[in-house]
């Protein structure tokens, strides 16, 4: 077994036991990245020198008998909207192509504290707006299961690089499905925690009330290990909970689900869903029943309005969050004759078409005279949706649902049709709007493409999701490494 096939837990164990040096592990993963990157284009900024220096420092620390943390020696990759001190952070945008943050995102510092080695920064849709990485200003990432297809988005580079073995753990942000949809498309785990579980400090926001940071992994154990590292309180993020987090890895011991109720959303039945996804859901349902769970129907009558409301709230917040890119303080600054000219030219040159589309929408729905008709009304729908979820979780402990309506689509297939592109978020964005935890996991393969399914839990109900996932991993198997034939 090659080192790049190993899980993060195994690598950390090997380092602790002295079986492999960090330098060796990092070198193997950099080699994997070098070999596949010409095909996949998952990385915006590889960090080879930095990773090698960090590996050497960790090896010295280990030789001195220190144990820097639970991820010591584990290569990791973060989405390129995570601020990294002295390392450029582009958000895959011309606007920030050369921006070097003066500080680390909290999650980056937690990973560093745990001994992880950052080996690269992953491609994404510009400012996390998109579902395919086709809206990256630099290049489109390929799906490691079929390079003619997209890896999903917006955290497509993180998903593809984890699936292909650049690193056993990668990280992304999820505003409407940006972790779970690419996880499904790349056949791995992708988890969006409860809103407030993980600090958002230092992750360039898309929509602050919906964004949440989460991990990608190829084993459930790795996913939970990653959660234990990043899910900590942070006084720099007022929306991050101060409560103690559970020991997530306890869920790995779960072998049966007696007394647990798995909910199926009645309203999701009406949607057009690809056959292999329907089959995967059936397999999962059977495995959960086998483990002793019961299956119940739950109802979310308002969920069909979710997409429309999401595409009001998220652009509204984005229009304000992205106002600061004005050419005055950082990032792109166009040559201009006047202040207004500076604003116009900088934003015209710095933002791509999808970002502009959403900023225009967001500015419009917040404008006086439209605020109540759009933004305020959308907030009311969100409140109703939250109530409906709360009621549903009175009847079920966890909800089983598709992650996406389709298998990975081909590059260019949806790029000219924003609405069709937005539809791929249909099943993921309700969890963001209600602030709920949700996991995409691999439910099998169809003609060489992975098939993702989703578990949604109640607020702070991470352990419900992970318990069900533990049972499913035992029954359906862990994800396979992608890119074997590349």
């Amino acid at each position, binding site marked *: 077994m090659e080192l790049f096939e190993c899980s993060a837990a195994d690598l950390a164990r090997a380092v602790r036991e002295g079986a492999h040096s960090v330098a060796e592990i990092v070198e193997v993963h950099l080699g994997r990245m070098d070999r596949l990157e010409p095909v996949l284009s998952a990385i915006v900024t590889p960090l080879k020198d930095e990773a090698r220096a960090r590996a050497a420092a960790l090896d010295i620390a280990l030789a001195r008998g220190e144990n820097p943390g639970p991820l010591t020696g584990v290569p990791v990759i973060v989405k390129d909207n995570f601020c990294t001190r002295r390392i450029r952070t582009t958000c895959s945008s011309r606007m920030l192509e050369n921006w070097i943050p003066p500080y680390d995102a909290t999650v980056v510092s937690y990973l560093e504290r745990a001994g992880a080695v950052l080996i690269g920064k992953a491609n994404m849709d510009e400012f996390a707006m998109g579902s395919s990485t086709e809206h990256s200003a630099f290049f489109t990432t390929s799906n490691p299961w079929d390079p003619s297809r997209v890896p999903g988005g917006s955290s497509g580079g993180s998903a593809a690089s984890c699936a292909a073995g650049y690193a056993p753990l990668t990280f992304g942000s999820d505003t409407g499905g940006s972790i779970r949809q690419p996880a499904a498309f790349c056949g791995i785990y992708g988890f969006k925690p409860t809103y407030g579980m993980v600090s958002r400090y230092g992750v360039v926001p898309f929509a602050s009330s919906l964004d949440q940071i989460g991990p990608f992994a190829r084993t459930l154990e790795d996913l939970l290990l990653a959660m234990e590292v990043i899910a900590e309180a942070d006084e720099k993020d007022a929306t991050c909970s101060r409560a103690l987090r559970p020991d997530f890895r306890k869920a790995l011991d779960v072998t049966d689900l007696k007394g647990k109720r798995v909910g199926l959303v009645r309203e999701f039945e009406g949607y057009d869903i690809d056959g292999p996804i329907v089959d995967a859901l059936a397999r999962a349902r059977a495995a959960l029943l086998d483990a002793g769970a019961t299956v119940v129907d739950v109802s979310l009558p308002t969920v069909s309005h979710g997409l429309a409301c999401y595409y009001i709230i998220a652009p509204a917040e984005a*229009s304000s969050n992205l106002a600061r890119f004005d050419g005055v303080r950082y990032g792109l600054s166009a040559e201009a004759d006047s202040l207004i000219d500076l604003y116009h030219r900088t934003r015209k040159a710095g933002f791509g078409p999808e970002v502009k589309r959403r900023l225009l929408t967001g500015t419009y729905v917040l404008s*006086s005279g439209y605020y109540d008709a759009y933004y305020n009304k959308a907030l009311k729908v969100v409140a109703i949706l939250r109530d409906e979820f709360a009621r549903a979780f009175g009847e079920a402990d966890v909800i089983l649902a598709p992650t996406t309506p389709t298998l990975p689509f081909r590059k260019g297939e949806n790029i000219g049709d924003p609405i069709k592109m937005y539809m791929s978020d249909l099943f993921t964005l309700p969890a963001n709007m209600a602030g709920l935890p949700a996991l995409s996991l691999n439910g099998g393969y169809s003609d060489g493409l992975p098939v993702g399914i989703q578990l949604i839990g109640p607020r702070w109900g991470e352990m419900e999701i992970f318990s069900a996932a533990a049972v499913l991993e035992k029954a359906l198997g862990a994800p396979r490494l992608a890119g074997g034939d590349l």
Partner: protein
Amino acid sequence: MALTFQTVIGLEIHVQLATKSKLFCACSTDYIGARPNSNVCPVCLGQPGSLPVVNGRAVELAVMVGLALGSTVQQATRFHRKNYFYPDLSKDYQISQYDLPICAGGRLSFRDDDGVEVSVAITRAHLEEDAGKLVHPSADGRLAGARYSLVDYNRSGVPLLEIVSEPDITSPAHARRYTEEIRRLVRCLGVSDGDMESGSLRVDANISQKVSDGRWGSRVEIKNMNSLRSLERALEYEVKRQRKVLGEGGEIRQETRHWDDGEGKTRPMRGKEEAHDYRYFPDPDLPPLIVESDRLKGIAAVMPELPWQAESRLVSAYGLSDDDAKIFAESADTVAYLDGCIRAGADPKRAANWIRTEVLRVLNEQKIDLATFTLEASDLASLLALVDGGKLSTTAAKDVFDVMVRDGVALEPAMTASGVTAGLVEGSQLEDIADKILAENEEAVEAVRSGRDPKGKKVKFLQGLIMRETRGQADVAQVEDLLRRRLI
């Protein structure tokens, strides 16, 4: 029939809160004289990914003002984003409050210059962050003509409390008095230094005229009034200007005007007249701010005495004059010092008199405040006790006071150092002094003895010299008696 006019003024006062750190980050608020962009961090620079966290102290200070103004302090309040582009605004939105200000309603009452009671309703007081400062390198420091501008973000994120009045104010003098009272309040509460010149207290005025023929002039906003005097002058100018226009049948343009203190005129601000749509919406980075009732009670419990409360107490309990009471109530420190003196046994009126003349003089001369003043209230009280007991003349006491202040020493050593002993200079000690003075002034002595001092001028002169030599510590009658005996 001649038209008459009624002036309608509403004030928006921005008070810079005296917190150590900024409203949403840990940076220092001490920006005056600081190197540009030295008190900054990712949060107040609006770096991508940074997030705000509310400064609890700023909330407390806002609550104190609310309680003092009789506002309803909202237990659940929230922050909104006010979106507009300007280079001094590091995020291109300002975090402010909109539909749920921390303090709603309230009232401020005061006496005008003629002693008439005036009451102004308060609309609201809300928390918001200050912006940075633009520095224009052109010759006259203005934006026009400058090839570029520099931005200093040291002030970015400094907490402000915006206190908005109802349009209840009917004259420029009342606007000035209202502002004086707000300033006195925030100083007394320790909420702000309230300094208009340095921008800790900024006043914007909305002023319009109601005409007796039923017309209403448009509302004009006046900015850039950096002192109480310029506030009153600007509004007086504006009253005249608006009345003249309306009197000639013209219309007042709704606009923002800039007060030019040198010219003594208001002028329309250039290029700022486009209608703004601030697209307010609740800031998703900040959860609703809950001021729990226990916390509210805690703040109420430590509220200092309000200026108007202190003022009436000083009159009723200590018998101070209205004028004296007002001077003392200007600052909580001064009131506390007076209270301390009286508690240590000093006579209220004498203590008030000494503090007003001597203590405040020293503070003025040394440009310090009571916090750094070395003389304890109890030390001053023991000095005044000697004066009251007839053991020390006022003159001698002032000498001792000066030494106590200068050397930072207690009463006893100060008396020794200034060569004063408690009690009267009398008996042989007084005789020795008298003999010395007489010996030094033979001419005068001779004149008196030979009857060339019919009006007693020379005797008074000699008497004065003796009193001075004893630093006023001799009994005048005894001195007169002694001189009469010696000069026969």
